[in-house]
């Protein structure tokens, strides 16, 4: 108990220095947590992906279409439960800065295959009945103040023109990782228009969304689908939703790597600052450690006291950093929801924060502990006077 008291008292003996070090660790852990959350947000689509959903797209590139007729063929593949299809619409609301993901999709299949989009039954039915209707995630609805029944006009970037929709439902995500910014409307609505304005683009889809009976058959189904369309005019690549999402992220992998590197550098910097604090602390207390050694306390006692002190400071800074990460992430996520639809501080990030704090405490204590253990009692006593 006395040693514990000594440890805590030592940690706060130089209040200004300890406060500044704690503040430094708080900021570092906050920055580390935010950067890790950004990385997590990058991978949110991967996290939210289902193991029973496959994506079938054109083998050349996602920008090339697939014929709608493939749907019936895919449905024949053993293990397939349901097939839907979508187009990336790329519409903007009023101006380019008002970006959110918008899809023309086969409405019923989309709602069946994405149970994580939670929509009241009445809104679901209203959406399915009206071909000009749309369903929107609650974050986007909140962002633009949209309510059910509102008429919204999107400007097409891939499909030129002004497209008018009636908001029939506002979905919420079943999980924290569910994207609540999407805008979904009927593929038929788009297709009917294309038949008149750009017939060569009609009856085509961007990708098929394939629901399989169980994750175990996913690989076989993917192989079977691609084999079916081999040597056709539009060969396919079928992959799990996760792999599909990862292929998007791989395009921006360099940015993710840089963010990860910066987050590690932040921790290394605070590690050096903390190590300096601990080194100064131990140097100042050389005499006291010598006295304790004189009384019979050994190297392990010194190590415990110094590491404990380092741990107290690092833990305090880490806990404050973690506590501030939540409101900071919320503010950041709210202001940049168009870029990061899911910006949530995950449990994994908290564990990484704690691990970073612990590593800082360990590394900062190593050199001072070594010095204290190596300290010759007579030399230490001479430093007193």
């Amino acid at each position: 108990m006395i040693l514990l008291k000594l440890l805590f008292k030592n940690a706060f003996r130089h209040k200004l220095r300890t406060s500044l070090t704690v503040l430094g660790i708080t900021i570092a852990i906050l920055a580390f947590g935010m950067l890790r959350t950004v990385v997590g947000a990058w991978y949110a689509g991967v996290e939210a992906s289902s193991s029973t959903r496959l994506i079938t797209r054109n083998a050349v590139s996602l920008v090339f279409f697939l014929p709608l007729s493939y749907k019936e063929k895919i449905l024949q593949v053993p293990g397939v439960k349901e097939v839907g299809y979508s187009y990336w619409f790329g519409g903007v609301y009023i101006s380019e800065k008002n970006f959110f993901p918008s899809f023309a999709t086969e409405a019923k299949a989309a709602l069946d295959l994405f149970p994580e989009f939670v929509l009241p039954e009445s809104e679901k039915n209203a959406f399915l009945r009206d071909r000009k209707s749309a369903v929107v995630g609650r974050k986007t609805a909140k962002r633009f103040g949209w309510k059910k029944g509102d008429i919204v006009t999107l400007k097409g970037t891939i499909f030129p023109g002004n497209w008018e929709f009636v908001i029939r439902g506002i979905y919420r995500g079943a999980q924290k990782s569910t994207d609540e910014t999407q805008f979904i409307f009927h593929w038929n609505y788009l297709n009917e228009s294309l038949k008149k304005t750009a017939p060569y683009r009609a009856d085509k889809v961007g990708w098929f969304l394939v629901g399989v009976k169980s994750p175990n058959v996913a690989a076989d189904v993917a192989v079977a689908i691609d084999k079916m369309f081999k040597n056709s005019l539009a060969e396919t690549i079928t992959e799990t939703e996760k792999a599909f999402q990862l292929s998007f992220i791989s395009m921006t992998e360099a940015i993710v790597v840089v963010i990860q590197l910066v987050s590690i550098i932040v921790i290394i910097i605070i590690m050096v600052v903390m190590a300096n604090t601990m080194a100064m602390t131990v140097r100042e207390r050389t005499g006291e450690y010598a006295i304790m050694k004189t009384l019979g306390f050994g190297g392990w006692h010194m190590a415990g006291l110094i590491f404990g002190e380092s741990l107290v400071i690092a833990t305090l800074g880490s806990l404050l950093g973690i506590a501030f990460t939540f409101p900071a992430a919320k503010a950041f996520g709210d202001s940049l929801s168009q870029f990061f639809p899911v910006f949530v501080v995950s449990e994994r990030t908290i564990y990484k924060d704690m691990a970073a704090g612990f590593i800082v405490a360990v590394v900062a204590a190593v050199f001072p502990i070594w010095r204290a253990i190596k300290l010759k009692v007579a030399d230490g006593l001479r430093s007193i006077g």
Partner: protein
Amino acid sequence: MPGGPIVEIRNLKKSYRRGSQIVPVLENITFDIAKGEFIALMGPSGSGKSTLLNLIAGIDRVDSGGIWVGGVDVTSLSETDLASWRAVNVGFIFQFYNLIPVLTAFENVELPLLLTGLSKKERRDHAEMALQVVNLSDRMDHYPSELSGGQQQRVAIARAVVTDPTILVADEPTGDLDRVSAADVLDLMGRLNIELGKTIIMVTHDPRAAEKARIIKHLEKGVLNDSS
């Protein structure tokens, strides 16, 4: 009354390296200290008296020769064994008291008892008794900064005796005290020697302090050349 030797020193040599030079500090020291003795080591600055005290107390290493305390060859012990040995056998009194400033007087006295197998209650009893011996029972919850120099030194003495060590070593115990406080501390050390039979080895510059000892030894340039 003093008994057989509790400290035996034979052919002790010690030198320090200063840059490229080796400076001899103690030359061929041989003497015994009887159990229950109160001995003062005197000599000018740099004569090696503190070094000799440190060697006897096992906080410094000899170059050659032997030191036996209570029959244990201190020079043969490893650092870890030496630390354990000090905890049981040596009580230290320093010139500048060397109390831990963030612990109360009671906690400072209890500190060495943490290394013993005593229960919490036993530790409390021992520490209270030690503070009673130095007449500071009413100051046990005070921090060192709230005590006078003399009181701090008495707390340091309580810390030194609380484990009932084989020997007490004191390095200039009155060097930082005014005359009245110094006299109190010396009286207390005298009582510890006479009433409790503690063996005390004291380094001092002060002839008045040395007078309290039964034996005075002089060190000059590392040589023990006189005894009285």
